């Protein structure tokens, strides 16, 4: 067999086209860190010109702006002299590779960022005798690399051997260019305490004091500078003199995360490399950053720690002010972070410069702004990036304040950092994990760094274009392979919502303020406008503009809106197409235009008045880029299909038990509170699908369909050898629609109540008598007819309805009669299809009620049951990407209850009769002056604009014009959720007197909705994060490189099975922060 394959393969190879797809040479192997050095020509202080490693500043100057392409800046003293030119210097990146324990070397020219175009960074080969581009062996399990202070040595921290490696930059580079003359020199350096005892703790992170040195000085014999090394198990950040390996200073942590500065290097640590380790409690420093602010000279060391003892606020972030000259600790400040998960830890930190917040001039304007802030970004293990402001009293900033509350806030200082826990800090957006910056979906941040991005000379990109970045920005890498851009201080855009009309459309809060994911959709401020007929006049508003095409190849633009029409799904045989106008709909508002003419438009549409648009989409960040929202009367609470996992499967499986206490749906995984089910919701049993045969049932069970069942497509899994025998006993259960009312709700159990048939046109105020019920039953039947009322000859409903209380349905308001029109019977033949007559003395004078379900004997439901959870007597509001939003939690007894602390916008259902809205509440937030909120959803009277049919008086013949634009007062049901606000109008319909839609009926509060009635729309142009255009498999670190270049280190190991995607053993990307489309790739 194998031989045959081999022959086949050989034959294919022999016959194939000579053109082969080249295989990528993989030069890297699990890169984890990168550092940079400057090497090249240097005129030394003694006037000699040599080629050597030199201070970073030398290459920085050489990489500066050029007046002309050949006018390359050089450091003072490095100018060419007659007969003594100074060769140029180049950047070298040293890429630490954890797999083989090597350092790979790459080179790129000293030139401005604007001259990079891709292909500028080249890997070098440290061993030309071995295939591929080889690195230099440095140590075991190296975890961090840094260039020493004067740029002559690379210092590597080794977790595998608990020591340091020191690589001589000069020899390393010389050995690459002259491999026969030199070999790389790597010295192992043991870390010692003040007494000279070797510290053999395992390092987790390392940073070096800022680059210094004097351009012109020759390299010293040893590495220079102070490295801070985090030793988690020793609860220590040690300041190590890299010349000797001696700890000279540091910070230690106690069990609560409290920091103590070390006066000297008098410390001891457990031996983690070859010795015994006795774990001790205490904070475990895991992440470091060290920066000196170029404007203020403030030197800071940020230390992020692993989780410590669960506290209400976790001491996992510590700021150490350093002496700006010696970089020794001066003071430590804990930054208490909200402990959102009880085990909060920090895994990556980045310090920003001191930033003058605000400004939109397109220039970095730190000096002129009064709001001066310095931030620390900390990747936390709650899936967010925490932000602390360390200018003044250190405090954590809440990045998740709901923009609804910030619409009128224009204090840039305040908008720069809302202190977590402060009474003046407005509430968070619903569903926020905590105060930190959230990435999209399940992305888990792995690393963060902050970049200062200067404007590009002669930039022809329009202000506000996402890729045009001016100011300070963070880049956050995530395990899912994405690299997110975060606005820290965007100096090219508004800093708050402009007071002018449509300000919130052009500059919504998530685009204005600090610490927000950067949005990738351009031209948010676009309005439904067309050129004026007068070329000199400004554009005019139009009412027929649906907005830009969201699926255009060039990408989506403009603000959130619906795209396409609102679809309406009407269950069959409930209402004629001519009468669907009587069903609830989403409010239409009047659009006025001198150009396109006035017309009614959806309040969610692009052409809605700008004030309405702003109100309906109050939080851009809470909107997914594209989402289909559906409002379904008595609709499913879960929508998951085979390819989605948002709010649970739409069709679930559980067991059913029937005993003396009734019928219960039981699920050991306890999903019911999570699904948001409430008492009086509906459980629709789906049984098994007979078309699949027995495949839908456990082995040994058969999908049995009762011969008398008239409900299509529903069988029931029953033991194969019992089904026929149980047919009679289970008949009532098997022939009904099997729609149950939910009684008690617990996380693992739902009580199921048999459900009587109720008339859907029962007034919201409750019925008054049997005659009214019978009349409304006829009305419901007439609605199925397409005939105008005056011509409708539909016969009366043959079923009998009586006005009774139904304790098994949601209690009606006290202001109602509390009764519903229920179908009563003496025999099954009196009932509608899929229902049976069940005896009940309350139904007197008839014998019983028609039932949509009955409680069966246990033997009928021994198999697992397929079912669907549906909202009872309410619209279920679901987003295709956000799912069903609810506030149900489990109490200590496992009962499903509404979370008393839930965000008021955590709502996903609309009943037809909610409480009235409070006219005194804030119209944007619904918050009352006392801090409480009006009901949500709530009932309100609104203007509804629509076209109404225009009949010739006294007839049902359409007049000319056939319809009139009308704005009328309508009952509305207003819902605010975390993403949008909408108003459903006409929950009830008065009926027509003569003709379709004349609204001249006399019915009061009579609904027309039937189960399954659905309104759905596609919302587009929600928030879309700006991502770097790179494709790492598993990015573990982002590093700020020369000229504020963004270096993303991808440790990922990916064995490709695709023709189009090569395998990798890790990659390193260089992305130009001033032009993020320019990418260099090493792999």
């Amino acid at each position: 067999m194998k031989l045959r394959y081999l022959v086949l393969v050989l034959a294919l190879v022999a016959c194939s086209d000579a053109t082969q797809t080249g295989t990528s040479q993989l030069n890297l192997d699990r890169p984890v860190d990168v550092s940079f050095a400057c090497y090249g020509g240097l005129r030394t202080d003694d006037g000699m010109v040599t080629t050597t490693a030199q201070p970073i500043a030398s290459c920085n100057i050489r990489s500066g702006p050029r007046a002309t392409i050949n006018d390359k800046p050089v450091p003072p003293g490095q100018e060419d002299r007659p007969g003594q030119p100074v060769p140029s210097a180049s950047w070298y990146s040293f890429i630490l590779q954890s797999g083989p324990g090597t350092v790979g070397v790459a080179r790129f020219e000293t030139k401005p960022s604007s001259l990079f175009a891709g292909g500028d960074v080249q890997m070098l080969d440290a061993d030309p005798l071995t295939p591929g581009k080889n690195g230099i062996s440095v140590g075991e399990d190296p975890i961090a690399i840094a260039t020493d202070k004067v740029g002559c040595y690379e210092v590597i921290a080794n977790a595998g051997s608990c020591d340091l490696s020191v690589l001589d930059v000069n020899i390393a580079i010389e050995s690459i260019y002259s491999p026969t003359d030199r070999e790389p020199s790597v010295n192992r350096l043991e870390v010692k305490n003040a007494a000279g005892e070797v510290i053999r703790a395992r390092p987790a992170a390392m940073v070096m004091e800022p680059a210094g040195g004097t351009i012109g000085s020759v390299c010293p014999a040893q590495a220079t500078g102070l490295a801070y090394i985090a030793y988690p198990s020793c609860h220590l950040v040690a300041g190590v003199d890299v010349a000797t390996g001696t700890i000279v200073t540091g910070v230690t942590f106690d069990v609560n995360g409290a920091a103590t500065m070390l006066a000297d290097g008098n410390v001891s640590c457990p031996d983690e490399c070859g010795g015994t380790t006795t774990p001790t409690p205490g904070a475990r420093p895991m992440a470091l950053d060290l920066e000196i602010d170029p404007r203020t000279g403030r030197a800071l060391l940020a230390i992020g720690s692993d989780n410590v003892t669960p506290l209400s606020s976790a001491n996992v972030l510590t700021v150490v002010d350093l002496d700006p000259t010696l970089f020794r600790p001066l003071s430590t400040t804990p930054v208490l972070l909200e402990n959102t998960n009880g085990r909060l830890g920090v895994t990556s930190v980045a310090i920003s410069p001191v930033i003058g917040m605000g400004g939109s001039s397109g220039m970095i304007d730190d000096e002129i702004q009064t709001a001066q802030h310095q931030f620390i970004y900390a990747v936390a293990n709650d899936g967010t990036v925490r932000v602390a402001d360390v200018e003044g009293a250190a405090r954590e900033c809440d990045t998740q304040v709901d923009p609804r509350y910030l619409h009128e806030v224009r204090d840039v200082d305040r908008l720069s950092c809302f202190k977590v826990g402060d009474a003046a800090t407005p509430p968070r957006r619903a569903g926020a994990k905590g105060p930190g910056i959230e990435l999209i979906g399940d992305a888990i941040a792995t690393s963060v760094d902050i970049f200062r991005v200067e404007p590009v000379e002669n930039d022809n990109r329009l202000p506000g274009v996402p890729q045009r970045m001016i100011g300070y920005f963070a880049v956050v890498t995530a395990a899912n392979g994405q690299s997110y851009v975060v606005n820290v201080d965007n100096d090219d855009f508004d800093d708050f919502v402009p007071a002018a009309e449509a300000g919130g459309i052009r500059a919504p809060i998530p685009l204005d303020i600090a610490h927000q994911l950067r949005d990738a959709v351009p031209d948010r401020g676009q309005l439904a406008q067309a050129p004026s007929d007068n070329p000199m006049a400004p554009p005019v508003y139009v009412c027929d503009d649906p907005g830009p095409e969201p699926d255009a190849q060039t990408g989506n633009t403009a603000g959130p809106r619906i795209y396409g029409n609102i679809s309406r799904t009407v269950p069959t045989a409930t209402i004629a197409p001519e009468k669907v106008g009587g069903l609830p709909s989403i409010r239409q508002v009047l659009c006025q235009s001198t150009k396109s003419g006035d017309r009614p438009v959806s309040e969610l549409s692009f052409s809605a008045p700008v004030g309405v648009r702003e109100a309906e989409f109050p939080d851009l960040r809470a909107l997914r880029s594209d989402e289909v929202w559906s409002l379904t009367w008595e609709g499913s609470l879960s929508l998951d299909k085979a390819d989605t996992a948002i709010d649970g499967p739409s069709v679930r499986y559980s067991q059913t038990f029937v005993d003396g206490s009734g019928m219960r749906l039981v699920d050991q995984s306890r999903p019911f509170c999570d699904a948001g089910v409430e008492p009086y919701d509906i459980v629709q049993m789906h049984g098994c699908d007979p078309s699949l045969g027995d495949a839908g049932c456990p082995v040994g069970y058969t999908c049995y369909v009762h011969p008398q069942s008239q409900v299509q497509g529903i069988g029931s899994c029953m033991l194969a050898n019992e089904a026929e025998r149980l047919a009679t006993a289970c008949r009532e259960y098997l022939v009904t629609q099997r729609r149950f009312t939910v009684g008690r709700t617990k996380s693992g159990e739902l009580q199921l109540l048999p459900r009587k048939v109720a008339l859907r046109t029962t007034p919201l105020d409750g019925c008054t008598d049997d005659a009214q019920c019978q009349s409304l039953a006829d009305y419901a039947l007439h609605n199925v007819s397409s005939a105008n009322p005056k011509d409708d000859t539909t016969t009366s409903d043959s079923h009998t309805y009586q006005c009774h209380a139904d304790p098994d349905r949601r209690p009606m308001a006290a202001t109602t009669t509390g009764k519903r029109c229920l179908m009563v019977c003496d025999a099954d033949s009196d009932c509608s299809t899929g229902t049976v007559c069940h005896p009940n003395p309350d139904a007197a004078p008839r014998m019983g009620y028609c039932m949509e379900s009955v409680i069966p004997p246990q033997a009928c439901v021994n198999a697992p049951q397929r079912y669907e959870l549906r909202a009872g007597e309410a619209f279920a509001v679901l987003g295709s990407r956000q799912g069903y939003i609810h506030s149900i939690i489990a109490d200590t007894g496992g009962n499903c209850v509404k979370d008393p602390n839930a965000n008021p916008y955590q709502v996903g259902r609309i009943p037809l009769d909610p409480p009235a809205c409070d006219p005194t509440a804030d119209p944007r937030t619904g918050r009352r002056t006392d801090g409480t909120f009006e009901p949500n959803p709530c009932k309100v009277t609104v203007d509804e604009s629509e076209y109404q049919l225009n009949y010739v008086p006294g007839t049902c013949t359409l007049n000319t014009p056939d319809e009139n634009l009308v704005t009328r007062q309508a009952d509305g049901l207003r819902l605010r959720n975390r993403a949008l606000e909408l108003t459903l109008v006409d929950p009830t319909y008065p009926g027509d007197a003569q003709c379709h839609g004349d609204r001249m009926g006399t019915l009061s509060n009579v609904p027309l909705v039937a189960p399954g009635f659905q309104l759905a729309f596609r919302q587009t142009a929600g928030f879309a994060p700006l991502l770097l255009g790179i494709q790492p498999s598993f990015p573990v670190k982002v590093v700020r490189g020369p000229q504020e270049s963004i270096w993303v280190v991808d440790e990922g190991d990916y064995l490709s099975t695709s023709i189009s995607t090569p395998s990798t053993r890790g990659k390193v990307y260089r992305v130009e922060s001033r032009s993020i489309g320019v990418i260099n790739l090493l792999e």
Partner: protein
Amino acid sequence: MIHVKLRFRATVSGVRGSKPVPMRTLCALLLVAGCTASAEEVRPPERELFFPTGAALSPDERFLFVSNANSELRYDSGSISVIDLDLVDQVAQQWIDSKVAAPDCTGDLDHKETLGCIEKQFILEGASARIGNFATDVAVQDTGNGTARLIVPTRGDPSVAWIDWNGQKLDCNPGAQGFALCDEGHRLAYVHDDPDLALLPDEPFDAFADSSGQFAVVTHLTTGAVTLINSPIGGKASIADVATGLFSADPLTGLRGATGVAARPTAGGDIIYVAARSEDRVQTLTVGHPANEGPGIPPYLVPGNYFFLNLVGNNAGGSVDSRGISFSASGDRMYLINRRPPSLQIFDTSLGPTGFPRNTGIAATDICRQASTLTVMDPGDGERAYVSCFQDGEIYVVDPRGVSSVEDIILVGRGPYTVVASLAHKKVYVTNFLEDTVAVIDVSPTSPYRNRVVLRIGDTRAP
């Protein structure tokens, strides 16, 4: 979910016993070679390791059960060896403390911390049992009072052996003497033991035994099926249900594959998590017991929620081809290894405010290619995940705290397959499939040889 459909076979007799076709081939080869091998000659050695695959601890952690796959078909059957871990500790500690090698042991010349010993001295005599060929895993169900039941899937003739452990020896052939082959009653190949009903699907892969629920679950690598084995204490095990259609097929191969299986302990009954080879999805299941459960009315699988592996690899891999799953002791963390891209993924499975597991990703680590299995244990200074890397002959030790990083990489031998951790012994045991050994790793935080192989059990087979 689609449960398995009835599959009738024309002939149901004659295929019992272990791997009949390969045995016929073996016999034919032996005939061709001009020799006639007696039953005794092809009987596997009781106290030797040969292609060890699965491993599991006895409930009291005194013994390690190792399945020998007989992948070379040198013998007429595979076997389960019982290794005395107290004795292992004794020999290892003596070596660690004083570098004194026990009899039949020699120090490893390349790794001074490692002692290599012939396995015979550690394998309990008269305690082993013979099973079918190509065993893939061993799962242990605690049946109380020092007894247990082993569930052992075998690929050769798709079946599952169940073997009772009385604290001293394995028994799957009552009445038989010595190193007996499991009898037909202990070899599960038909659903409900009914040849006319349905066969066990092909390629049984991973097994999980639930002691409190008295059931076991076996996944199937090439069909995506999940088999439920009813295993009442004191009663006979049987295949109760087979669920198929839980996973989508691989778009390239068309195959569906269920791989790792483990359960999150919960008060109402454990929730089973099953990973896939063909899809980036984890499916949960529970076991339903019908109200009238009895001998003829076995339990069944009830599918629950599922979630996708969106944590890693959306750019380059999509996190398909998952392998092992393991839970932390509390059940609040689920560890999953994935081959494409190679990663250890950590999920928060603690109960949220709704009382339902959160099932959200919280961390990930890049690991070796071709990872097979993993185990999780807190050896004394925090939880660690130990991942076996078949291709590289290594165990990756991952510290899930903080950034979830690889803490150590341990060379263990060729073809590490199953990794098992014992808290009582502070050891990790690794079956080295390609060299017929079990590597014993010291993971005690206070050991000078922490995360090093201190003992290699078995005579290393040459490549």
